[in-house]
């Protein structure tokens, strides 16, 4: 479409502010506020692209050298969730995902197939991410929306079903979590829990991580992004053979270390700015939706999974899985199953455990086992999706992503639900995929409708 061409031609850092401004106007928040929101989003995007470029420029050659030295293939750079979010929102599916997401929610509420009013507008990007991958893979925008909508429906159902668990384990009342990244791990956690439950002996195994954070004490500084990034940068550069002595010439180990530390701090800060820009839009959308359903029945408020992050087990496992993820990444790479170097997204690992912990009934052993399985599968998924991810990134912002090499992320790049929504388009062709996705969504919605009716 002509308009899309012009807007995409301007590049996402100009396009997104325009779209955000328009949305603001449509939502009635006035030109001043809308324009400011749009500009803030643009600034966040520019900052984000700048830092990712900086990180990629430093890390990519180091990772390539490291891989060459050790017979590994860790050259796919994990650019992290801020990049994934920016790329998702900047894509054509992302442009309309907010109104589409709200519309789908409203249809589901009208058909009584969900109990959730999803006000977590920022996290709509996860749905757009799935849609964006499909739109790129099939070169068909409509199919992208089909995938995004399927993603929404499935996640809304998972959110409804798991809400009571969050009340029990996290003390969250009246809340559900339709956050597509964390929720995707729910079915797998459920399967693992059910299987272990049935294995005598194993089903009694648990370990107590209640006091983990206190025991970790001073060592917890190692897991702060600023320190973690610096350490990873140092290790990668060291094993890549970069010089320690600055007199030798060339980029030193320390330089890469600082760049990585900076990246892991600055990238989320830019994402923060991006989100700040989106807040007036999110607030107005939230008010629109909530006013509509005020007093019209008992609904769950759909929130970001971050509200459930406080469970001590979730935090403890998030910390434990960090070094494990690096080890698994290297190990899998040695046997040719993984090409991703975890970097920026090491900080989102706790989000993988959000649903896992309540579903595994707070059992540390089961949750950790599930986590390890998810990382193994996730890295393979992330490797597999890297080419499409990179394509989508280049389409969204050629200036930043062209020539960096393959990129991926753990947040959504390694998302199993995203994977099984995207891959059918490759495995069984477009027609088949549309049928499968539609059937699955309809079945899920109808099942949920029946379940709600019988409550």
């Amino acid at each position: 479409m002509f308009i899309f061409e012009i807007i995409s031609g301007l590049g996402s850092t100009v396009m997104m502010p325009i779209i955000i401004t328009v949305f603001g106007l449509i939502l009635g928040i006035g030109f001043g506020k809308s324009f400011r929101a749009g500009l803030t989003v643009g600034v966040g995007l520019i900052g984000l692209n700048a830092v990712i470029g900086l990180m990629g420029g430093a890390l990519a050659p180091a990772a390539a050298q490291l891989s060459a030295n050790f017979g590994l293939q860790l050259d796919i750079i994990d650019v992290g969730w801020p990049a994934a979010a920016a790329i998702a929102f900047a894509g054509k599916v992302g442009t309309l995902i907010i109104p589409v997401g709200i519309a789908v929610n409203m249809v589901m509420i009208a058909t009584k197939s969900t109990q959730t009013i999803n006000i977590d507008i920022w996290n709509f990007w996860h749905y757009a991410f799935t849609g964006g991958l499909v739109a790129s893979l099939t070169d068909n925008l409509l199919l992208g929306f089909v995938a995004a909508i399927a993603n929404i429906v499935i996640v809304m159902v998972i959110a409804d079903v798991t809400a009571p668990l969050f009340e029990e384990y996290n003390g969250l009342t009246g809340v559900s979590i339709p956050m597509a990244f964390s929720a995707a791990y729910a079915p797998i956690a459920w399967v693992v829990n059910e299987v272990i439950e049935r294995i005598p002996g194993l089903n009694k195994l648990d370990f107590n991580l209640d006091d983990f954070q206190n025991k970790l004490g001073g060592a917890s500084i190692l897991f702060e992004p600023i320190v973690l990034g610096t350490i990873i940068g140092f290790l990668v550069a060291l094993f890549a053979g970069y010089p320690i002595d600055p007199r030798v010439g060339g980029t030193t180990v320390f330089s890469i270390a600082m760049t990585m530390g900076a990246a892991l701090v600055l990238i989320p800060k830019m994402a923060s700015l991006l989100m700040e820009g989106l807040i007036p839009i999110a607030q107005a959308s939230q008010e629109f939706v909530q006013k509509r359903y005020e007093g019209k029945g008992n609904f769950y408020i759909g929130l970001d999974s971050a509200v459930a992050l406080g469970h001590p087990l979730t935090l403890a496992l998030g910390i434990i899985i960090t070094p494990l993820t690096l080890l698994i990444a290297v190990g899998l790479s040695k046997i040719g199953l993984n090409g991703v170097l975890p970097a920026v997204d090491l900080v989102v690992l706790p989000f993988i455990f959000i649903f896992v912990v309540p579903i595994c009934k707070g059992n540390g052993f089961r949750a950790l086992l599930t986590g390890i399985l998810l990382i193994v599968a996730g890295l393979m998924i992330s490797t597999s999706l890297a080419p499409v991810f990179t394509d989508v990134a280049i389409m969204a912002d050629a200036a930043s992503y062209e020539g960096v090499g393959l990129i991926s992320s753990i947040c959504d790049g390694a998302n199993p639900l995203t994977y099984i929504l995207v891959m059918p388009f490759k495995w069984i062709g477009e027609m088949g995929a549309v049928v499968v996705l539609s059937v699955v969504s309809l079945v899920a919605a109808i099942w949920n409708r029946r379940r709600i009716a019988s409550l």
Partner: protein
Amino acid sequence: MKILVCCGSGVATSTMVETKIKQSLEAKGKSGFSVSHCRMIDIEANLNGVELLVYNVQLQKDYGVPTMKGMPFLTGIGLDKAVNEMIEILGL
């Protein structure tokens, strides 16, 4: 009058709550306060001068400052009550 909002990621929910707190207090004509946000894990490092800690995740320990739930600022439910409570705690 420093208010610190914490959440899991230090990005998503805490940013929204921070904005809502600013808007709500300003709407009531209050000034002389500042709001910032951080991750739950970084609370200790950011406690300097903080008079109220607003939390979006379960807190693991007592940080020696008054605390308040951030949920009303996120969902809008019980917002008025929460804003009044905040004004009272801070003596604004």
